[in-house]
């Protein structure tokens, strides 16, 4: 691992103790967004892990992106990311943000969050269940290991 990579990993570990997440819907069907709001409910209670959602990207460590990157929202998406102070992470949630889903490469949307935003962790699902999102967030901050595929 290079020095830069090592540094990034250590920073991510520090963030993992108290992680502030900013949600960005760049063009989703809302399924992923509802699963994200479920994270705050008493069943999943993401706050018990030291993770919380914040109102402003200026307060955020991690940008949680749902949906394809639509042409109408792209500028606001970039401004949101640019407003986040370093160090910052980006996690793509769901088939649309990871790979474009059923809306990839149309006149209206460029597709996945990458290459517009630099993605640190990809969470598959349509939508991913809340536990899968928690797993992805904890992988992003080095608190859980990613599982190599194939799984079996």
């Amino acid at each position, binding site marked *: 691992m290079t020095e830069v990579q090592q540094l990034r990993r250590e920073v991510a570990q520090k963030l993992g103790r108290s992680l502030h997440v900013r949600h960005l819907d760049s063009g989703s069907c809302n399924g992923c967004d509802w699963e994200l709001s479920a994270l705050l409910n008493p069943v999943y209670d993401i706050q018990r892990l030291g993770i919380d959602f914040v109102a402003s990207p200026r307060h955020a460590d991690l940008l949680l992106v749902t949906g394809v990157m*639509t042409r109408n929202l792209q500028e606001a998406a970039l401004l949101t990311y640019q407003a986040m102070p370093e160090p910052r992470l980006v996690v793509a949630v769901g088939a649309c943000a990871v790979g474009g889903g059923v809306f990839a490469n149309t*006149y209206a949307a460029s597709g996945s969050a990458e290459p517009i935003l630099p993605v640190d962790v990809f969470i598959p699902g349509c939508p991913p269940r809340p536990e899968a999102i928690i797993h992805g967030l904890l992988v992003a901050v080095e608190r859980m290991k990613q599982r190599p595929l194939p799984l079996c």
Partner: protein
Amino acid sequence: MIAQTKTILAESPAPIVPEGTPAPNETLGFCRREDLPMIAAYVISRGAKLATMVGLDLTPRAAAFAVEYAFSLPAYDEFLRLRVSVPEEAREYPSVTSVVPAAQWYEREVKDLLGLTPTDHPDPRRLVLHERYPHGYHPLRKDVSATEPPPLDQRRYDYFEVHGEGVYELPVGPIHAGVIEPGHFRFSNIGELILHLDARLFYTHRGVEKIVEGKTFDDALFTVERTCGACTVSHAVSFAMAAERLTGTTIPPRASALRTLLLELERLYNHVGDIGNLCAGAGFHAGSSQGAILKERLQRLNEELTGHRFLMGAVGVGGMRYDLLPASLARALSDLAPIGRDVESYFDMIQGADSFVHRVEGPGHLDADTVLAFGGAGVAARASDVPTDYRHDHPYLDYAALGPQPVIEQGGDASARLKVRAREAIESFSLVTRVLNTMPDGPVSVVLAPAASGASALGYTESPRGANVHWLMADGQDRVYRLRIRSASYANWPLVTRAVVANVVPDFPLINKSFELCYACCDR
């Protein structure tokens, strides 16, 4: 099934030439372009309501464009579809918005996506395509590629301005503070008082209607059901229904019952979740937490029954994609009873919490005349004393037998919308129980009859937010030629801008949550 429509046609002040009945309760009629506003006003005066409006590029087959207004006659369960040919050389037609305000967004959308201009439209600004899209780019035209990115541009968009001493503009969004979809709200205020709201949607415009063109109905369904995650069953059934109606296909009784079941389960988890969300909007954390727990139990039931927390992927064209096992259905029935009791008890708690009740009484008042003029749908309409409910007005699937009555409140405020949801949720428990107890046996899908080239029909369901109306035209190979998705949220967003006037800005999140419209449903 078309008797009232025939009467209306016969008594029209200008000629409407009937062109057949695309489906048992639909009549297609043509009129001259110049007669359009007069006929639209006449049809409305006969009790019709605008259900949807679609622009068509028929140039590959007929060297012309067309616009079609589909009107519902709720008292008769009939639809009158009024189509006007728009010649290629003169891509314009007279706007009907000044006589039918409900048409305002539809006509602006047709201008953006097809380049057909509604002349004398009171608000000719672009709607769907924001500043990056160049003028002259109309993606739903047949000669425009579905996949090629549009050339980039940077145009202006003019927000409605209010002038006066002390008036200021407050821009909110598109990225909002909470976990919520994007939309831009440009308020004009004096102090905290809202004078005017110019709302701008379509940030999640993904081009669903263009994507599905040329796909088989089965393939298109995967995209269509992802128009909106919270209304996915409603969109899936509306689309499948349109395909079935235009091919004259009847689905088996068990499929009809299963679809009804899933539509009501969708209504249930949405209503309970939306009420919890409204509590969050009022800072009433006991209400939002308990509501979220109940929503989670319902979504888990969804997953145990169909394999998906949002019920996606269960509905198929011709019926259901797969059968639900009797054991699963029996388990759902027994799981529902305690959830139903807990939901009722939860509603009692909320409605007994005086401070919360006072908080939601008053904000966001919407009167019946505004709802009727704008073609409002669903919960927002019923809470303002407008009895529109497609399960009752245009019964589909098992609803004729189940006979749900529209749940009406008179208050028109946030509290009224809350009460409509609560009463409907309790009714949905009863409907689901009845459907489960009378579930017929048999196959769950049929193969569609072949579709005639150019055949079209409507498909419609009452989603948790109101009627989702799909307009579908087939090409000659059983594929989609044109799909127009009109969601209840599309009809209701203009109502929100009216409901906030004369309220204070801090009440906006509460008012917005009392409508709980889908941005994704609207934007597609």
